[in-house]
């Protein structure tokens, strides 16, 4: 187990942390989820068929762990809303994370880009992070997400359009209500 862990950690940990952090935007949650990713990877390493690269396999597991985390959060939110009967106002309740220092020192536009990412869909956000923040190729992104290359291109195009619209709306001080997950 140690050898496999060393191999994955040395080759991909920096990128993995970066991806998970941008997805969940919380240091402690990132650490917990990364732990879960490594456990899944190490538990199923023997059955890894090598049909994709180790890197895309690792990141596709990371993405699913993240989606699962979002689902659990959503369930928790629904339960809280049911309990307090907040009705429609419940949609307005969002997890507010303080800006990390690295972002807080950046200019207003960069801070808005960082925030607006959370208002894209999970698919759109995944593509933006992988393609532009992680510099994955289209092919690597496709393998990671289990999509066709053309689907990555389409989603990327939609994602950039959605992000631009969100930035324009935030510039005008409008509420984001474009569907966060």
């Amino acid at each position, binding site marked *: *187990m*140690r050898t496999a*862990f060393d191999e994955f*950690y040395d080759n991909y*940990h*920096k990128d993995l*942390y*970066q991806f998970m*952090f*941008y997805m969940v935007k919380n*240091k402690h949650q990132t*650490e917990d989820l*990364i*732990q879960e990713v*490594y*456990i899944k990877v*190490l*538990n*199923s390493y023997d059955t890894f068929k090598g049909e994709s690269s180790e890197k895309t*396999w690792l990141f596709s*597991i990371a993405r*699913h762990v993240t*989606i699962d985390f979002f*689902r659990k959060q959503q*369930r928790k939110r*629904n*339960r809280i809303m049911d309990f307090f009967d907040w009705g429609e106002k419940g949609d307005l309740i969002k997890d507010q994370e303080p800006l*990390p220092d*690295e*972002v807080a020192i*950046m200019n207003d*536009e*960069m801070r808005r*880009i*960082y925030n607006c990412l959370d208002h*894209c*869909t*999970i*698919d*759109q956000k995944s593509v933006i992070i992988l393609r*532009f923040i992680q510099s994955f190729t289209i092919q690597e992104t496709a393998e990671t997400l*289990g*999509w*066709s290359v*053309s*689907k990555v291109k*389409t989603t990327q*195009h*939609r994602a*950039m*359009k*959605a992000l*631009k*619209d969100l*930035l324009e709306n935030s510039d005008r001080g409008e509420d984001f*209500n*474009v*569907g*966060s*997950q």
Partner: protein
Amino acid sequence: MARNDEDLLEKKLKQLPQFRDDQSKEELYQKISRQVERESPRNKIRRQWLVPTMASAFGIVLLVLIVKGSFIDMQYSQEESSSGMEESALSDEANMKRSTKDELITGEQELNQSLDKSSKEDSTVLMKALNSKAAYDNNANVAFIPVAALTNSAQYIVPISIVDPTSTKKEVLGEYYNSINAKIKEFGNSSVAIEEELGISLFPFEGITFNLNQDEQVVQLSFDEGYQMPGGSSIQGLFDPILSIMFSPQNIKQAILTNVKEGQLGNMGVIEEIQLDPLNNYAYKIYRPKSNMGYEYLVPTQKVDTLDEAFAQMRISEPEFEVYASIPEETDLHVTTEKEQISFSFSNASIFGNDQTTLDMIDSLLLTAKSFGYRTVRFELPFEKLGPYNLTKAIEVPDGANPFILK
């Protein structure tokens, strides 16, 4: 969006800061080792199948009362085929009409919770017939059209296979795709809201005209001027997979969108084409809406990487979304694969009865196996027949789920 704008935004995204993990490699490894050790099988206490006899007896009595009042007559054709299927989708006419009373669901839950091995033997006598939620397109003279709706929470897609024995697919394909919601509504009572009666919500198809070109493997979607996709990414995010569910079985590879105007599709923006990939690697679970009419569906839930993950997901209920485990928690499942065939055996097979719970598990495993690319499935269970299936033979994976059969 203009190319320059996209380039500029791309450049800014690349300037976003890098974040680093503060914990050391050793620290992380120690945490992982401890966790792996805690989760190792020898540290797990296997849950025993211990049900008090009185509870079992109570379950049987309750079942007799419920079954008597709930099921309508159902008939299976006994025409045996080589595929392990003993009936066509058409012959199982009662699939969507099997119960009209809410006690059915309660009854099944009680059954799941309280029957032990001995009582299950009795239950095979009590249950008049079981309802498969898998659908087979095995009759060239019958139209079989995959469409889709949503769970009432709009969390998951409900695939529906409309079966129309009065037409062939070629005759009615266009007509059906351009009146999906109207066709689904035909299965309900017009005086009752579809969400309450069938327990499903209709996808906003009205205002979209579908035009299939099977030769070029393309479906064209034309949007009416006033069309508006509801807000929120959950519905919008399900649009691509819904198109895949409906059109991939027709061998359609691409959807071309025309007349889309700014804002009509919400956060999806103005898009011109969508690649339709088959719905691969999904875990199917049971959607059991709280509606009073007793309808249940198999729905694709999480997309996963491996079969093991799929089986783990299938054991997890999500009551907040009215979605329930399709594999009972106690199931000790063994899987072997050979080329396009997957085989399931169970070291504790004696816990299964010849009942709806087991049939739901079989149906969900068939659909999940299909989404992983398998063509045939074998089951080792302590009985030869279950619902429409002949378990002594390999069973072909279904063509769809949740048959709605037009009379």
